[in-house]
């Protein structure tokens, strides 16, 4: 029944979302606001479903798993339960224990993870910039030009390198980016219609 209803719902709500772009009237804004309200409600329900799925998976790991898998699952579930209890018992406002744990534990962990980006970038650049083919050579020369132009030493070593760097960024780079955007825009438009019309999409669309 729900699957049967989903198709007309997708068509109606999808069409409303498209129409909203062309109708500036307040009625259109009202519909948009209601749709966003529903989205928030759906997202809240989906978050609960996600958390339950997470808890179920880790509980299964604890009952079936061995060694580090079991320990990691126990830590995850324990942390979830602890944060839930702290938030419910002591509140989540500024200066609360919940906020303090978030700021002093989770944020440093996240920052550490994101700091890996720099190291990963260096190793990826080292791998990518190898003279294996003509495109790779162009990539290497372009990247080195832009890199050198960004440091004072670059201008000292190669006079007027910043001019070439600017040309690369404002010329070929912008042209390629715009080309990508045109392709993405057209494909996104067609993808949206395919989903709304049920030609294809992740909502139980009909198959040819």
């Amino acid at each position, binding site marked *: 029944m729900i699957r049967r209803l989903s198709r007309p719902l997708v068509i109606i709500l999808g069409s409303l979302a498209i129409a909203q772009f062309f109708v500036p*009237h307040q009625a259109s804004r009202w519909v948009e606001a209601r749709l966003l309200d529903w989205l928030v409600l759906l997202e809240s329900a989906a978050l609960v479903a996600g958390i339950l799925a997470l808890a179920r998976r880790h509980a299964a790991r604890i009952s079936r798993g061995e060694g580090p898998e079991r320990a990691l699952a126990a830590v995850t579930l324990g942390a979830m339960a602890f944060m839930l209890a702290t938030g419910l018992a002591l509140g989540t406002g500024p200066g609360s224990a919940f906020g303090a744990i978030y700021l002093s534990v989770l944020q440093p962990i996240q920052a550490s993870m994101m700091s890996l*980006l720099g190291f990963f970038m260096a190793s990826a650049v080292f791998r990518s910039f190898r003279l294996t083919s003509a495109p790779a050579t162009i990539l290497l020369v372009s990247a080195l030009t832009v890199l050198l132009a960004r440091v004072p030493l670059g201008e000292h070593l190669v006079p007027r390198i910043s001019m070439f760097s600017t040309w690369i960024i404002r010329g070929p780079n912008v042209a390629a980016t715009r080309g990508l955007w*045109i392709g993405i825009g057209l494909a996104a438009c067609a993808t949206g219609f*395919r989903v709304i019309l049920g*030609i*294809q999409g992740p909502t139980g669309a009909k198959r*040819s």
Partner: protein
Amino acid sequence: MGATLACLLLLTSLAFAQVPSASPVPLIASDDSALSTPAESLLAARPDSSGPQAIDSLVVLDSPNDAGGSLDLYWTLSSDDGIESGAFAGYEVLRSASPDGPFAPMVVLGPGTDRFRDRFATVGNRFYYMIRTRSLGGSASDSRIIGPVASRGQWFDTRRVSVLVGLLVVLLMLLATKRLPVDQEWMLPAVRTLSEILGRTHRGSLVFVPGTGGLGDMGTIASVTLLEEITRMPGSEGETADVVVCTSDPLAHVLVVNALPDQDVRYVSPDRPTFSLAFTGEALRSPPALGVVAGALGAEAFLLSEALRRSGAIAVGGTTDVGETPFLVASCDLTLIGEELLLAGPLLSPGGCRAAALVHDRLKVLAWVLILVGVAAAKLGVTWYLRAFSGGGD
């Protein structure tokens, strides 16, 4: 037929684009001329006969293409404006809910200004306007009172006619896909490579991340569509199930669970750094043979693809975010760039879906033609063509 209709629609679009975007709303002008109605306490200077020349034409129009709540005022410059530099102070816009006042000053505009947009003209209310010309010496002259005028919302944004026509063209071409021959040879190189990789991979060792963005991003939709096709394609041993899917967005998680109830769908975390952390740990502890990270991605794209690489897996990336593309290209064995990701699902599917993907090529040809005509129009100074494609961005 589709192409003919497309051309007709485009011509209609261009014709519409020549129509002035502002649709004047009939106004009722007051019969009172040179009526002086100062607000009791707000106006420092009173109009007097020695003031600068009052403006003789004031027009108030409903602002076009908005939800209401805004009125546009236009006037001709006072004859004293600019003649004696320094003596003319500017124009004061005054508004009242009644022709008898009191008129409250809204803003003082400098010399040379001949328009003002009142963004506080609440829908449902009627207003009266007056422009007071001021000199530096403090003298002032009032224009006629114009009103009542009311703002109202419009039901169609005329600046977006070209966008509407573009959408209709895409829609018509999609609906006409049944007539398209499904050319089995036509395939994007990146999608063909992905198809070959998938054919050599055992599904039980495939990890898929449908991006970390929400369902509002087309990359997520395209990614889940691609995932559906992957689960239908037979693996190296003919199997079609057992793809491990790691999700970040709650709605995307529910969508994948519903679309693919037989798969191992794992909700990890809505927080992107936390998701990256958990995914990296999983990938390093249980290395997959193939990892696909495709969809709406942010800075974590690089972390996820590098984690796959370090685990020894074949890393396939895909994003519609142009900014993240270089990172995926640098770290992945294969990258689906922009439209390749959006078309990968349809191209890997049989029949009508695949034909629908072929429409993209025709759309690109059409886009190229429009761009070339646009370049010619810009060179020749044909501005109406360029305005037609401005899209009415705010």
